[in-house]
């Protein structure tokens, strides 16, 4: 891949990728590391889609897939480690996002969701990916995405309403 083409692709795709990783992992520092590793693997991968031939959308999907696999590996390593070996900070909510209205509402709701649910919701409602694209990124069966997404959406909508309710009652 030519340097200029990569720089342009990076400029357009890096922020959405970081946002996805940061929101799903709830750890901005981890998101930064995983994002860089995703791009390096993308550049080294022999089977990565070419920007010129297959287009930016295919390259972006491939990049999100690499990032998703890295996240999964990270969680697997955490699970494999003994509970005594995991630093205490990891149990706390790690997000240090700006406290805007939507973040105040969405942050706690996302923290109560499972990582897989956070992935599906972000890809569908923040990135606007179709069920087929989500299946490609996550490696799940396309047929099960609809049901999983429906359940996740209902669950987080419940959390969002529950959080918004006390605020709404105030004068």
């Amino acid at each position, binding site marked *: 891949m030519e340097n200029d083409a990569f720089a342009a692709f*990076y400029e357009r795709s890096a922020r959405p990728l*970081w*946002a996805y990783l*940061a929101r799903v992992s709830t750890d901005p520092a981890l998101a930064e590391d995983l994002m860089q590793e995703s791009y390096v693997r993308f*550049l080294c991968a022999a089977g990565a889609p070419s920007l010129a031939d297959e287009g930016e959308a295919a390259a972006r999907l491939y990049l999100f897939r690499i990032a998703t696999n890295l996240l999964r590996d990270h969680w697997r390593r955490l699970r494999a480690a003994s509970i005594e070996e995991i630093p205490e900070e990891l149990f706390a909510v790690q997000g240090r996002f700006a406290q805007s209205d939507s973040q105040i509402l969405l942050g706690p709701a996302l923290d109560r969701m499972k990582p897989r649910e956070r992935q599906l919701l*972000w890809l569908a*409602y923040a990135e606007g990916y179709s069920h087929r694209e989500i299946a490609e990124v996550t490696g799940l069966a396309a047929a099960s995405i609809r049901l999983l997404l429906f359940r996740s959406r209902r669950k987080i909508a419940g959390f969002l309403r529950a959080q918004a309710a006390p605020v709404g009652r105030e004068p």
Partner: protein
Amino acid sequence: MMPRNCPHEKEIRELIESGQWPLAAAPELRAHVSACRACSDLALVSETFRQARAETLAEARLVSPGVLLWRAQLRRRNAAVERLTRPLLGAQIFALAVTLLAGVGFAAFEARHGVAWLTWLEQLPQGAGRWDNFFSASLAGSAFTWMVLFPFFATLVLLGGVAVYMVMDRR
């Protein structure tokens, strides 16, 4: 819980994606959303995630694409070096195996034809002062045996050291 699709979901999704929800929506559609659970979930979740995405994108701290290109280049080079050195390692292991085989063959040959040092080894526990006997027997029996044995053991020690080094270096 089975997903129940509402025919208005597509329309609502399009309005949200174009940023026209709820202002440009027909009053009937807004009334429907407030009554339909699936559509109200969709509107709430989509709006919240889209707003959170816009805010999260601004928080990303990106490294220069040049750094990623350099890291990828370095990784590709390391992989190429590893691919090149793999046959060399194989050749080294093969050479070691052949040498050891030759050594074992030589020892077997010596044992079959009877050498003074074997006799001396058998008599070793029986008393002290056998070294002199062995030395004199070796010299008397075959000076050639000594000339071969010493380089043989020296080679074994040397190759053992190389093997240990290779294992440590590999780790």
